[in-house]
Structure formats: structure tokens, C-alpha cells
């Protein structure tokens, strides 16, 4: 478990990658109104393009075993505890950088078209650039605290972008929910981080730096590592929408569609997976945590896929599909196949971004309509969108030689063959693959095939999206196929991917049992269930039939309603957590605080007042009474002193 020694070089260029989008964001924030919509949007795109160019250049410079660093300044120093604001790029970060800036750039371009009619377009690009800035901090930070700045920063941007159309309460409520649920995860994350720092600090090593952590990880006791990784995983589950903290992601679709593509599919939600991969040296030492992660990942993947079967909102289907695919990533992490997880993250970024942007194109064409029941037959109206959508759907469903095929099979194979894996894990993943194919093709058929069910006046305006929107779609569709070719299994032409990430996760892989023949057989099995899913979808939704209704009323409609209402999870949380919580809070605020605590204070005051009310009777105001008292007291004193003598 000794990391390959990495050659560290200092490259001052790194800091410009996040800084350029930040500067663009600031310029647009202060002068955007004066620059005009076009210029502001252009500036935002150029800034991300510049970051992308730097990322490419860095990627080209970077040897697989190397690492670039750029220390900007010391951020916090308190005694031996020191945190520097500093960036690092190694093989893992480089991949993330390309995803974030590359796909980020495409989505920026797309947004130029998508948000063209929106009056808040400048604000939109301010947020979007700010998001790129924070996301780059997240992936480039060379210590946990810089990562955490990015972590929270992307949460902020996500909050702002979900509630971007703030005049609608539902959007801002979704934004709040996203931020607060994420905060619950962050609570775990911070505690894990604190535990890690203090445990190592007790051994005299005060650091949050990934490289140093990796060197000193052996100082920690196994129980501590388990606890630390569990707490960190709470954070990851929050960010990456795993059970039980996934509830915010489907609601987050309230944001503009490019946001869903960028933040809630391609980049931010994968931060949890990235973080665990970044700290893989900790996680591999905690087998209990890993098996929990694998279980949760598998459960999330399956559970979200079942919900996606019945949703009618085009984006919600994709949202649950994202949750499900994130589940796959965590399955991979849970079995120690970090490279597979990052591979799936990488390919997923392409096809899911493509799907979201495609759905955005549909929504755009239908004037904001998101209900799939009011779509259909759009193939003829939106050819580019349709064909890119088909490719991306094939990719996510795992059709042969698409990106999803390679990455998903890689994970399933690892789940089956690696020592931490098991047949059960594989089985759940396999089943989910079938469900995925079914709900994705269901969506494809509902949206693009059959009769057009849109209202007449909407129908009249259906148009293919402008070039700024279709070009990103085409690029992403290409990525949805070819991105996977980097990580082909051994029985094909072998994986470039594993070679690239080898230096990072080197020891994390353990020898797999099982032969290439098994691998091919399993792949065929997966293809079979994927094909089954497709066929089912075709028979149910591809042709005009009564089957959907009949399926819905199966077993009295109970299972359908259960899925449609997402297992009533939101309602359960509401009853179990939110309501008792607000009730308790209301009781404290309205009864306990004014009644008991302030009541005691006021009771003291009233006591003093009552006491005085009694004794004020003595003050008659009559001088003669006072004098009488005076005399009496004098006499008493006199008597006392006389007696003393």
C-alpha cells in the first residue's frame, strides 16, 4: 500500500484555471448589465474555454506518474495546524479537470442559446462561472480544506441555480432543500475531517494535505479509520445523492436545464465519488466502510432506477437515472475499484450531459413543457436532438461499443470478480442495467415516437434548437460513444484508462478472480437484460397500446403509485424528521423561551415589584411620620448603647 513516489513539479499556471472563471464571474457581476447580454455570455464562455485550454495543456505536460503543484499562500495557520491555499494536478485531477472545463465549456455554449430569452442571463452566467471556479477548487485542492471550499462553494452555486427562477416558490424551496440536505452531509464530512486531523495531530502530524495524509495514514488505528471514512462518506452521500440523502437531487431539477446537465449530472454530484477516490488510501483501509458503501451504492442504483420507471417529468426521469448511475459509481468504490468508478464518472458525464441537454432542447422547443405525456413524435421536428438523444440513450443503456457499455461492464465485472465484490452486488447491478434500458427507452419512445400529444398552439411553434445548442449535443453524443473506448476490457484492445490512473490507485486494486471467458459471458448476460429492457419498452411504449395503463393498474395500482410517489420517501421524511423538528422548534420559540426562560427573568422582576409595592406603604409622604420613625430609631439606638455600657 505504498504509493508510487510521484515527481512533484511546481507549475504556476494552475492557479489561473480557477481564477479566470472567477474573474469573469466578478466582471459580469459588477459590469454585466453594462456589457450587455451577448458580451457577458461570450465572456463567460471564453473564460471557461481558457480554463479548458490550460487544462489540456496541463494534461499534455503531465506525465502519468507526475504531479504538478501550485501553492498560492498560507490560508489558515494556528500553531502547528497549517493550511495552504494550494493546488495540485495529478492523473486523477487531470481527468476531472477535463470533464469539468470541457463539458462545462460545452454547456456554457449551449446556455447561450437556451437562456437567450431569459432576462436573467447575466446573472445566470455569473453563477455558472462561479460554479466552475468552485468546482475547480474542489478537484484541484491539494488538501481537504481547499477541497471543502470548493465543496461548499459548488453547493452555494447549486442553491442559487436551482432557485434561479426565484419568483416561483417551488424552485427556491428545492434550492433550500438541496443546500440543507447537503449541509447534513457536510456535517458528517466536517466531523470526519476533524477526526482525521486531530487523530493525526495527536501523533504530531498536523496536516490535511493529501500527499502527507497518504504517507502517514498508517499511524491511524483501524477503528479510527473506519469511523473517519464513515463520516466522510456521509458527506459524499449528501453531495452525490445516495441513500438516505438523495432526496434533494430530483427536486433540484427545478433549475434551468443546462444547470441540471452541468451541476446535477456531470460535475458537482460526482464530487462525492471524486472525494472518496481522492482519499482512496483511507477507504481501502476500512473494509467495513467499503462494504457499506457498496451496499448503499447498489441499493441506491436499484431503488432510483425503479422510481425512474414511472416518472412522467422528462427531467425527473433523468434525475433518478443520475442517482442510479451514481449508485453504480459507489458500488465500484465500495469494491475498491476506484479506477472503474472514475471511469464511469467520466463516461456518465458525457452521456448524461447529452441527455439533459437533449431534454433541454425538447423543453425549449415545446416552450417549457416538461411532461412526457404531452410530448411524442418529436423525431420529425427535432432531428439533431433526436439522434443525439438516441446515441446517449444507447450509451446509458449499455449498447455494445458505447461509452456506457464499457464503463458499466467494467464495474459489473469488478463487482463480480474482485475479492470485495459478490454475486449479489453483481446481480443488483445487472438488474439495474435492465431497468435502466427500460426506462430510458420508455422515455425515448414517449418523447420522440408515436403521436404528438402537445397542445395545438405549442405544436405550431416546435422548432429545432439553434446551432449553439445542437453543436454541444453533437460533441457530447460523440463523447458518449468514444469516451468509453479509452477503457476497453482486456479481451478487446485493453484499457488505456487503467494505465493512466495506475499510479494513483496503484495498490488499491487487488487481484481479481475469474477468467476473460467469464467476463465475456457476464457481458453477454448484461447485454441480454439490456436488450430485454429495450424490447419491453418497445412493446409497452413503442407502439400504441393499452399496456401502460394495464401495467399501472397491476395489483390494484399499488406498486405503480408507490413508485410514482418515489416510495413516499419525502413524505416519510416530512413526518419523521421535518415535522417533529419544526414542532420542537416552534415549542421552544413560542412556549419555552418566552414562558420559562424569559418568564423566570420577568418573575424576578415581578417579585421585586411586589415586594416594593408592600413596602411603599411605609412611605406616607408625611414628614411627621418620618420624623416619628426617626425619633423611634434614635431612641432605640440610644437604649441599645446605654445598655451596652
Amino acid at each position: 500500500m505504498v504509493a508510487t513516489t510521484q515527481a512533484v513539479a511546481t507549475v504556476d499556471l494552475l492557479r489561473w484555471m480557477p481564477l479566470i472563471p472567477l474573474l469573469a464571474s466578478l466582471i459580469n457581476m459588477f459590469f454585466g448589465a453594462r456589457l450587455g447580454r451577448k458580451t457577458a455570455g461570450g465572456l463567460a464562455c471564453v473564460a471557461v474555454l481558457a480554463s479548458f485550454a490550460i487544462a489540456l495543456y496541463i494534461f499534455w505536460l503531465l506525465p502519468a506518474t507526475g504531479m504538478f503543484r501550485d501553492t498560492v499562500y498560507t490560508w489558515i495557520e494556528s500553531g502547528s495546524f497549517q493550511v495552504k491555499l494550494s493546488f495540485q494536478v495529478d492523473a486523477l485531477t487531470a481527468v476531472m479537470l477535463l470533464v469539468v472545463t470541457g463539458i462545462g465549456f460545452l454547456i456554457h455554449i449551449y446556455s447561450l442559446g437556451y437562456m437567450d430569452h431569459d432576462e436573467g442571463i447575466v446573472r445566470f452566467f455569473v453563477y455558472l462561472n462561479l460554479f466552475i471556479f468552485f468546482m475547480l477548487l474542489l478537484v484541484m485542492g491539494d488538501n481537504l480544506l481547499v477541497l471543502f471550499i470548493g465543496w461548499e462553494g459548488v453547493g452555494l452555486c447549486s442553491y442559487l441555480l436551482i432557485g434561479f427562477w426565484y419568483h416561483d416558490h417551488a424552485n427556491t424551496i428545492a434550492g433550500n432543500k438541496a443546500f440543507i440536505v447537503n449541509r447534513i452531509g457536510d456535517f458528517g464530512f466536517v466531523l470526519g475531517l476533524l477526526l482525521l486531523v486531530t487523530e493525526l495531530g495527536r501523533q504530531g502530524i498536523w496536516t490535511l494535505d493529501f500527499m502527507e495524509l497518504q504517507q502517514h495514514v498508517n499511524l491511524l488505528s483501524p477503528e479510527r479509520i473506519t469511523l473517519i471514512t464513515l463520516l466522510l462518506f456521509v458527506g459524499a452521500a449528501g453531495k452525490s445523492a445516495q441513500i438516505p440523502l438523495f432526496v434533494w437531487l430530483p427536486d433540484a431539477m427545478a433549475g434551468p436545464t443546462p444547470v441540471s446537465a452541468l451541476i446535477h449530472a456531470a460535475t458537482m454530484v460526482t464530487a462525492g465519488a471524486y472525494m472518496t477516490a481522492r482519499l482512496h488510501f483511507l477507504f481501502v483501509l476500512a473494509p467495513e466502510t467499503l462494504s457499506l458503501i457498496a451496499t448503499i451504492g447498489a441499493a441506491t442504483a436499484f431503488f432510483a432506477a425503479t422510481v425512474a420507471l414511472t416518472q412522467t417529468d422528462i427531467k425527473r426521469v433523468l434525475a433518478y437515472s443520475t442517482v442510479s448511475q451514481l449508485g453504480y459509481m459507489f458500488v465500484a468504490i465500495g469494491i475498491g475499484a476506484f479506477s472503474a468508478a472514475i471511469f464511469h464518472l467520466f463516461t456518465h458525464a458525457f452521456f448524461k450531459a447529452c441527455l439533459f441537454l437533449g431534454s433541454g432542447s425538447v423543453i425549449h422547443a415545446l416552450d417549457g413543457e416538461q411532461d412526457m405525456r404531452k410530448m411524442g413524435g418529436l423525431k420529425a421536428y427535432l432531428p439533431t436532438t433526436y439522434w443525439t438523444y438516441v446515441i446517449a440513450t444507447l450509451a446509458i443503456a449499455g449498447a455494445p461499443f458505447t461509452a456506457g457499455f464499457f464503463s458499466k461492464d467494467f464495474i459489473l465485472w469488478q463487482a463480480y470478480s474482485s475479492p470485495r465484490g459478490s454475486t449479489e452486488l453483481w446481480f443488483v447491478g445487472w438488474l439495474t442495467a435492465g431497468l435502466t434500458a427500460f426506462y430510458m427507452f420508455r422515455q425515448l419512445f414517449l418523447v420522440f415516437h408515436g403521436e404528438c400529444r402537445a397542445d395545438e398552439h405549442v405544436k405550431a411553434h416546435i422548432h429545432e434548437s439553434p446551432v449553439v445548442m445542437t453543436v454541444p449535443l453533437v460533441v457530447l453524443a460523440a463523447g458518449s460513444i468514444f469516451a468509453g473506448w479509452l477503457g476497453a476490457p482486456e479481451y478487446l484492445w485493453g484499457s488505456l484508462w487503467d494505465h493512466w490512473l495506475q499510479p494513483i490507485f496503484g495498490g488499491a486494486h487487488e487481484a481479481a478472480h475469474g477468467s476473460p471467458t467469464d467476463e465475456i459471458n457476464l457481458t453477454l448476460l448484461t447485454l441480454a437484460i439490456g436488450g430485454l429492457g429495450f424490447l419491453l419498452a418497445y412493446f409497452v411504449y413503442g407502439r400504441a397500446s393499452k399496456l401502460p395503463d394495464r401495467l399501472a393498474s397491476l395489483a390494484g395500482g399499488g406498486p405503480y403509485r408507490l413508485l410514482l410517489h418515489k416510495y413516499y420517501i419525502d413524505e416519510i421524511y416530512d413526518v419523521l424528521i421535518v415535522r417533529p423538528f419544526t414542532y420542537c422548534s416552534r415549542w421552544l420559540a413560542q412556549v419555552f423561551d418566552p414562558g420559562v426562560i424569559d418568564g423566570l427573568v420577568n418573575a424576578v422582576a415581578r417579585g421585586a415589584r411586589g415586594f416594593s409595592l408592600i413596602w411603599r406603604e411605609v412611605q406616607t409622604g408625611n414628614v411627621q411620620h418620618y420624623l416619628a420613625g426617626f425619633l423611634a430609631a434614635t431612641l432605640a439606638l440610644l437604649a441599645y448603647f446605654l445598655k451596652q455600657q
Partner: protein
Amino acid sequence: MAAFALGNLSLLLAIPVIGAMLLVLIPRQKSKAHFTCALLFTSLAFLWSLTILNQFDGAKGEMQLVERVPWMRFYGIEYLVGIDGISLFLVLLTTFLMPIAILASWSVKDKSKEYLFFMLILETGMLGAFVALDLFLFYVFWEVMLIPMYFLIGVWGGPRRIYAAVKFVLYTMAGSLLMLVAIIYLATRHAQLTQVLTFDLLQLYDLHLPFHEQAWLFLAFALSFAIKVPVFPFHTWLPDAHVEAPTAGSVILAAILLKLGTYGFVRFAIPLFPAAALAAAPVMIALAVVGIIYGALVAMMQADIKKLVAYSSVSHLGLVMLGLFVFNLQGVQGGIYQMLNHGLSTGALFLLVGMIYDRRHTRMIEDFGGLWKQLPVFSAVLLLVTFSSIGLPGLNGFVGEFLILLGAFAVTPGWTAAAATGMILSAIYMLWMFRRVIFGPLTNPENQKLKDLDRREILILAPVVALIIFMGVYPQPFLSRVKPSVDLTLKRVFAIQGMPTAVNNTAGGEAKNDGR
């Protein structure tokens, strides 16, 4: 002149008083001149405090710029002032916020002369309390600042101002009288043991009293400061005072006066009675954590924005108290940093609430909604301040919060975990408020006519916002100057006891005391 040359700190204390005297001379009708005069002198004080910052040697933990003039020789009472890393930034915070508070008082039309007079006197009182090193002098300043605040709330406040003002004064006074008794007792005991009657804090630090005496004295000091902070359950005067106080009063109250409570702990109660403080730590930590959670829960359900912010102060200051009572560098340093953060972000929140109140004459959350459309600049600033208050990394709140949690976690992980729920709770109540005020449809016709911030208001907010960001991005200039003094204070706490790892004894953890 040679006979009575004012030192740097004394001049700082004198500037507002001189301003107040001049103010008295200006005829009543010229209210513009009053404001100009007050603004001039508070700005002057701020500039002067910057020169003090310049002269301050950040590498030293000892008292600097000390001035010592005998006052009541017979009783050993001196005029003794000085400054160290702990008080330096609190002084700067005070002088920084005063011109802003004056600018924010532009809407005060009624008796503006007296109002400004009290503001200036209040500034001297607060500054004096921060720099006084003679216990008696400290007590004098402590009471001096009470009176102007009483009038600020009682004369220029809201409908229930008298109730609030009286409650504020009586509550604070009840605590401080006990402190006076303790001060006198302490000085007398010092005289008995060393034959020197003095109120000099630095000499009293070296007094080794037996534990039971320390305990009583600590109790008296702690009660006085706890009311000021306010520590749960002594907090109920705060919402009342905040709600009724005029904007500038709220700003000063939250940003500076409350800090005097926490400052009192770290300057007086803890180093004077280290054994008692260590023994009391578990209780104080418990109260602090309860305060964090309780304040946040109660804040959530408030209908009045000012009240919400007031309860959030209870929560935030609970965090500061937690940091101070874990007795390690990170905790105390973070606590002091958090005092500054809270001063800025809560000060800014009250300023913003005041601005919206000036326009709408209501502070009820339900009266607003959809303000972003009408007031984008206001909303953006409120957003930033909200997230500063929530503790978003990159803004000031996070640095202090993280250091406190880090320091506390090494000592008492359980309580720290409970305290860290404040992270979630603060997000809930602040975002909930923000959503209801700023987001949503702009339905209320009265809100549709609102004007965005004008130049004066932007001028008020800009420096605060700039500092909020700066302190989050680059806290080092602050932390490094605070550190030596905190080290010294901690050394005092542990050296007197002769038990360097006393943290273990207080909290039961096997944590090695770190960082030193």
C-alpha cells in the same frame, strides 16, 4: 502640555469625547452639522486606531502601548490602559463600525444631537473597556457604556423601548454589581497577601488564590460576562433589546457590546481564576453548546427578522464560548476570530434590516417576498452576509468556526459534534428567512415600489462586505497577530496551575494539548 501628554490609546479614548463636547456646542437646529461632526470624529478615531495597528508589534504577546497614571493613589487605583493581540482587533472593530453606525443613523431626525452625543460617549465607553488594564477602570468603562445604550434604546427605540431598555440595564447591572464585589474582594485579598493594594490586572494575574475563593470570584465574573455575551439561559434581554433598539443601536449592541462579554472571559475571568475556569469548563462548554442549538432552533421560528438575527447571535456566541473554554490555541484563536466575524456579519445583517425597515417600516418576514426583483443590490449583499453567517468557506465565518471546532474536537469530540449541528441549523434558519424575504413572487404592492440601495447605503455596506470577504480569504494577518497573546493567556492559565496538560483533566479526553 508636557505635564499631561496623552498617549496613543488615551488619545483614541479622548477623540470621541472631544467630538461629543463639540457636538454640545453646535446649535440644535443644525442637524447636518451634528452628523458631520460625529462622522468626522468617529472617522478620526478609526484613522487613529489604524496608526495604533501600525505601531502594534504583532510578534509580541505582551501588553503594548501601556499608559499608567495614578488615579486614586490611596486605593491603588490607576488609569492603566494597554493593548494586546486579543483586544487590538476588537478596538479596530469598534472604531471601524462606529462611522458606519453613524452613517446608518441618517434617518434619525428626532433629537439627533443627543443621539449622536450618546453614540460618541458609547464609543469611548466601549473602547475604554477593551483597553483598560485596571480592574476598577474597567468597571467604570463597563458601566459608562451602559448608560448611553440605555438612552439609545429607551429614547429612539421601537414601541416597547422602555421595557427593553430597563430590562437591558437591570439585567446587565445585576451581573456587573456582583463583579464589582468580586473586584474589590480580589484587590483586598491581593493587599492582604502582598501588602500592595492594586487593581492592576497584570499584577492580579499573579495572585494565587485557593480554589474555593477562585470559584466564587469566577462565578461572580462569569455571571456578569455571561449575561453580556449572552450565554444560554441569560439571553432573553437580547431579543427585546435588539428588536426595540434603533438600527445603529442594534449594530453596536450585536457587533461590539456582546463581544465585551466574551472578551471579559478571555481577558479577566479565565486568566484571573484559571483553576476555577478549568473546573467550570465542562459546564461552560455544555451551556455554550446548548446555546448554539437552542439559539438556532428558536431563531428558526421567529417572524421578526431582527429577532431572528438576535437569536442567531445567541447561537454564534455559543460557538465563541465553546472555543474559549477548550483552552487550546485553535479554540481560543478561533473564538477571537469568530468574535470579529460575528461583529461584521451580524452588524451587516442589522444594517440591512435597518435599511429595509426605513423603506417599509416593518420587519416581519411575512410582509416581504420577491425582493430580488426590486432590490437586486440589497438582495445580493444580504445573500453574501447570509452565507457569511452560515459559515461558507471562503467567507469570514468559516475560518473562525472551523478553528473553534478543530480546537474543541481535540478536547471534547462529543460536544463538538453537537455544536457542529449548528452548521446545519444555521443554514436552515438563515436560508428559510432569505427565501421568504428575497425569493418568491413580488406580490405585495407596497414592495413593488421599493427603491434599491442608494449611494450612502452602498457606502455603508461596501467596507463591511469587503472585510467579510477579505477575512475569509486571507485571515492570516489577523490570526498571526492574535496568536502570541493567546499563547500568553493560555500559558498563564496552565503555568499557574503547574499542570501543562490540564486540558485532559477538564474534559476527560486523553487529548494531548496540541499546538504549543
